[in-house]
């Protein structure tokens, strides 16, 4: 893994008043955002070791500075259709939730946006194929709809239809 390409996220001043910073990324043709403070770093995918007898969305594990870290195929976990072929842009966002590190495999990272919490619309118009409980709301930036996801709920929800054990 070449650390030169990795982006270490500077988490200073992620909260300015009611402004929250969101890391936006791409899954297929759709844009998503998650709270920047949850993200620890972004890396280019190293070789992922497959873990048998785990749910299908678990792509495997990688070594993040000596810590065995699972990588989740976010599209699989969210039940999105997968058309996107593996490209150079693919990234893994390392998330830290209460000390548990999880990597999210995504198509590409876009940018960090400061969004006023009032500007996040709670209503969704069905444009995205996500279940509503995973969504905090939507936000429009430069004409593009960004779906703000609730990453904790997504990762720790056990009633997901894609939980069946895979046959790798």
């Amino acid at each position, binding site marked *: 893994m070449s650390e030169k390409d990795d982006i270490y996220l500077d988490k200073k001043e992620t909260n300015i008043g009611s402004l929250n910073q969101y890391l936006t990324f791409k899954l297929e043709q759709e844009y998503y955002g998650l709270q920047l403070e949850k993200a620890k770093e972004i890396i280019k995918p190293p070789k992922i070791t497959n*873990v048998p*007898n785990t749910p299908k969305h*678990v792509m495997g594990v990688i070594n993040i500075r000596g810590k065995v870290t699972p990588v989740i195929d976010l599209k699989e976990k969210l039940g999105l259709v997968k058309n996107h072929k593996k490209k150079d842009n693919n990234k893994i966002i390392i998330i830290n939730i209460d000390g548990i590190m999880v990597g999210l495999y995504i198509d590409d990272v876009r940018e960090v946006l400061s969004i006023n919490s009032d500007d996040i619309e709670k209503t969704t118009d069905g444009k995205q194929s996500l279940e509503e409980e995973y969504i905090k709301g939507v936000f429009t930036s430069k004409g593009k709809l960004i779906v703000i996801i609730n990453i904790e709920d997504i990762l720790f929800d056990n009633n997901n239809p894609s939980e069946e054990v895979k046959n790798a």
Partner: protein
Amino acid sequence: MSDNNEYLDMFFAESEEYIMVLNDNILKLENNPEDKEVVASLFRAAHSLKGMSATMRFDVLTELTHKIENLMDKVRNNKIDVTTEIIDLLFEGIDYIEEIVKQIKDEGTDDFNLEVYLHKLENNIEEGKAHKETSNQDIENNNDNFDSKRLTLNEVEKNNIQENKKELDTVYAVNAELDKVTEFKQVRASMVLKEAKEMGYIFKSDPDIKSVDEAEIEEDVVKMILISNENREDIVNNLSNITDVVAINITAMDIESTDKNMKSDNEKQKAKNEDSSSSKFAVSSTVRVGIKKLDKLMNMIGELLINKTRLEALNINSEGFKDILPQLDRVTMELHHTVMQIRMEPIGVMFNRFPRMVRDLSKDSQKEIDFLIKGKETELDRSIIDELGDPLTHLLRNAVDHGIEKPETRVKKGKDKTGKIKLKAYQKGSEIIIEVEDDGSGINIDKLTAKAVEKELITQKELEEMDREKKLQLIFEPGLSTTDQVSNVSGRGVGMDVVKRTIKSLDGDVYIKSEKEEGTKIVISLPLTLAIQDALMVKIDEEVFAIPLNAISETLKIKSKEIRQVKGNDVIVLRNETIPLIDSRKSLNIEVGDNNYTEQEEMSVVIVKSSGKEVGLIVNELLYQQEIVIKSLSDYLGNVKNISGATIIGDGEVALILDVRDIA
């Protein structure tokens, strides 16, 4: 004294050890009231604790230990007989000591109301009439047999002192003799010198202050030339209050004369009747380290090992590189083994608290119990030992409270009126087994199952399908109890579920065996979860897996024609043993497709021990043997079937560790 704080930790460590020694010896004394050795041990422990408390200025604790010391002195001089009353009194005293120490730890003060207890103690001491005061404040003028080679001064030094000393100062040659058996000579010597420094100026000393702070010392006597305006008595008193200082020898020096004209009055203070040749404490010299620090150390060694492996994989073609690698290898190995050893502790350190507990419990419940401990020396990872205390306490309480019957009941049943409880630890292969066994009334299965159904833990139908063995294990379900009476000792069977949960969290297992009227046996098995293990690396499908060496009995290559069929399953016959074959890919849920192993000419087989029997695991390739650092497979994934963890291999990638225990 200004530097008390830095000794506080030492104080806690020592008092814990002395409390252990006291508890242990009082138990011994109860069984063997005439044992003078034990009495002497108790006296010495109380004495040392007193000295320590006095040094640290914990007055209440000093008084308490002083009184206990006095009581033991009476016992030692046959003025008081060891009765049950005395034993109880002593135990009560130890409990107070423990409580006070805890309070000091929590609140920093030993402010504690002991009036009632001290009064009781006093009464008992009074009973042993006419004795001489036995405090170490007694100053004995003992000129003989004291190793009084004092430090001397040459003429230059004398002149030097003469020029610098103030009018009221006196020059003393002071020798402080330390208890020969103390484990903390260095600390004691340092305390002596620091205390002396408070009172004046140390012109020179042996050992000198610097060497005391820097290295281990061997001397039993701290010698110094002290220039001070304090009078001799104050110096003696201050220095003799320091723990383990058994004698002070002090002489005022006439620096204008030669050494031989030293004033000959020689004061010696000696803790009376110390017989340092007999009955040494069974206290080991220890440094207390938080388990977190050890974990961190272990992690770092793990990192080191991983990097070493990666370095080896570089395979640089240079003389120097090839010279250094074996050395690096040796150092890392030794480092690893040392830390492993640090983490291992005999389980006895935890078992030691139980005899006292069982004794108290059996007294409270008016039962007669023989408590046997076996396998104290069995070693376990320290973090596991720490976790085992509560579950074992619970199991033993249950054994006393619910297991063993009252003497009259036992007699009626035709049993020996004294019940037996056995606590046993031993290693079995790569597991540590701990058993708690009693010969009490056993578990009433009908009652247990009836309750389980009543509490809707199982249905009547499920119950009918269960065998006896399975029914018994219901006791580990939450909220089940077999005693109708509520006892303040172990509640109502509450906690067996907690026991099970704790053991499971340690990657172990627990089961119960019980025969009505014959007794109950609870067996805990714990894996020797070592953080670093030797493993065989194999290739399965295209991934590298590690199989712990202690699970492997051998590896071999077989030809497809050697495979036989038994009841439709593939087996091989090895030295007349029939061993079933398992395709590792199937155990790991890897799609096999048409690529069946039997079509290969030759296959690699790892014979592993699984669920008590041997099975042959077919893998794609045997790679190499390697030390691996065991890492958890991430909390996010939880327990994964047939995978026990992960490790980092040479190229920095993750390899999974196969758990063969249930693979068959």
